[in-house]
């Protein structure tokens, strides 16, 4: 039996879409990876990106530190009236967002296109 299957490596891929940026997050955002996600979001916020869409389809796990990283990104974006939007979370992650009531803080979309189209 292998131990390596639980914590799938975190990868992040940035794609520019008009005035928005899609940050595709894949793998697990565990306690030791959350800092990387926060750094990436802070970097995008520092570039005054108007809309950051987190495409979460491939993200299989996130802990509270990872949620905190997204909130920090949201707060930094607000300095320039920017927004963080969440797209395509897996059922377990969506449930986590609902349990923490972060669905009140973030708009959640069923597709990246829908998140991009929202005015």
């Amino acid at each position: 039996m292998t131990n390596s299957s639980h914590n799938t490596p975190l990868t992040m891929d940035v794609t520019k879409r008009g005035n928005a940026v899609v940050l595709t997050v894949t793998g697990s955002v565990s306690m030791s990876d959350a800092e990387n996600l926060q750094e990436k979001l802070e970097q995008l916020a520092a570039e005054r990106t108007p809309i950051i869409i987190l495409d979460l389809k491939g993200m299989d796990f996130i802990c509270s530190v990872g949620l905190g990283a997204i909130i920090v990104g949201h707060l930094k974006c607000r300095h320039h009236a920017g927004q963080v939007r969440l797209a395509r979370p897996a059922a377990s992650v969506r449930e986590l967002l609902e349990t923490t009531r972060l669905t009140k803080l973030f708009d959640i979309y069923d597709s990246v296109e829908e998140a991009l189209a929202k005015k």
Partner: protein
Amino acid sequence: MIDKSIPTDLTAARRLTEEILSLTVASGYNEDDRFAIRLSLEEALINAIKHGNNFEPAKKVRVSADVGAKQTTITVCDEGAGFNPASVPDPTTDENLEKPSGRGIMLMRAYMDEVSYNDHGNEVRMTKRRCTGLPHLAGHN
């Protein structure tokens, strides 16, 4: 049964988390139960390393995990001064939603069936009862 002391270190915590999760896989826990156990274990370890031991490398975190056929019980104990879990603000209220931290205890309580602290406030014990929809019983429900 796992009973280990690990250094106050995220890499060691991650390794131990993997070890415990492997036991839940071997015992046939379903994906939802494994997610709940993983999340709660990570939250307990984060609290122990960050708030309990203040990242002090000389301090240890003691973890025991009993992954059984019917339930999993995990205990995480740090060497910190302890705290009163009742004093932690509810992170789901409107005024706390934008706080980047403070969700760990609430998540443990939401995802585990039982969560309790010792009197000193430096040890959390939590139990997850296995989902009743056991694969081998599915046809009998």
